[in-house]
């Protein structure tokens, strides 16, 4: 392992993480295509991953990386299920427009 990350360098990574998270968040709110909305959640996962690894490097241990393995697991499971749901919805009514499915609000 290299030396622990300084607070100054940690701030760089956290800033990048915050920017990526907010871009993903804005994308999730503005895009209307179901698949792109899920893609934006993956972008937010990436932002969380950067913060996790940067904090792990700051504290000089590998637990941030180990936790990221579990995040990757959840992300893979979420992507598989979400895409299966999109395919199911598309079979029922051939559109990807999120607003066409507003009756799912219940």
């Amino acid at each position: 392992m290299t030396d622990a990350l300084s607070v100054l360098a940690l701030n760089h990574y956290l800033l990048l993480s915050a920017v990526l998270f907010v871009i993903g968040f804005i994308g999730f709110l503005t895009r209307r295509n179901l698949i792109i909305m899920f893609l934006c959640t993956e972008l937010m996962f990436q932002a969380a991953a950067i913060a996790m690894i940067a904090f792990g490097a700051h504290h000089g241990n590998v637990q941030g990386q180990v936790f990221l393995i579990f995040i990757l697991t959840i992300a893979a499971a979420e992507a598989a299920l979400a895409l299966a749901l999109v395919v199911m919805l598309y079979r029922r009514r051939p559109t990807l427009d999120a607003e066409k499915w507003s009756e799912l609000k219940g």
Partner: protein
Amino acid sequence: MVEMSIIYAACVAGAIGLLFLLPRGDRRWAPIGAVLGGGALGAGLLALSRGQAAGGGVDVFFYVLAFLAVGAAVRMITHPRPVYAALYFILVVLAVAGLFVQLAAEFMAFALIIVYAGAILITYLFVIMLAQEAPDDRHPDALTDYDATAREPVAATIVGFVLLAALLGMMYRGTSQMPAHAATHRPADAELAMLTGKVEAALRKADLIRPEETIREVDAETRTALVASPSGDGVRTVTLPVDLRVSNVDAVGVSLLSEFPVSLEVAGVILMLAMLGAVVLARKERLDAPRESQSLIGKAPHDSQTLIVGVGASAEGGAS
């Protein structure tokens, strides 16, 4: 210290730039948005690098990779065509993997590329190509309405960048109070004590122990190993070679299997449940499904039925 005023100004400029870049009917404003957004990103990175002059931290590759990641992320949420959005996301993943290498997390960098760029994004591309339709048949290149226009771009951008400004303001006030090196005090390469197999292989390769001897214990603090021979003529201490280091993969593996074994099992169960769930959700409708939904899935079940009948008939013909 980074001047917060530059950061907040970059937030405002970035918000306006992103607003112009988001997909809408006309693309006239997109170049202005690109200039504003790029300027905001540059100003933010410049503020960071000026603040950095006080003390060491990151090198120039951070700025290159961060620029790539943020630029590709912006392009991903602003590109009207879903396939291009997915490809730009792969670029984000590659840039983030580069940052992980910078942070000495090689294993996670490669895992990210394999799992995200290799597996998840390919699934996304499959579904995009499966489910994308052209609005009319004569123009297969035309965009659908829901891809070409954003939903509530002004409100979403304002909310997003207010969130960003709040996050950064809190972050710069909070992290300055963190201890400079909060690292737990433990010997370097502490994992060697658990990696006796690796130590033994390294010692055998360096001819420091005889073939019949085995490692009994490794002391990572003094970098020595207790070696015992089967003939029973006592144990001796061997100093480890200096180039024997714990790699990132070793450290992650030791931590994963010694500290979080139950979580690892749970992760496996989650993956299997997700696989089963995806198969159940995305399977084709059965022939005896209600007629209303059957009409939407096309002629595939019908064809497979005739195929089965045909195979059966030919089998009968062959038997007689």
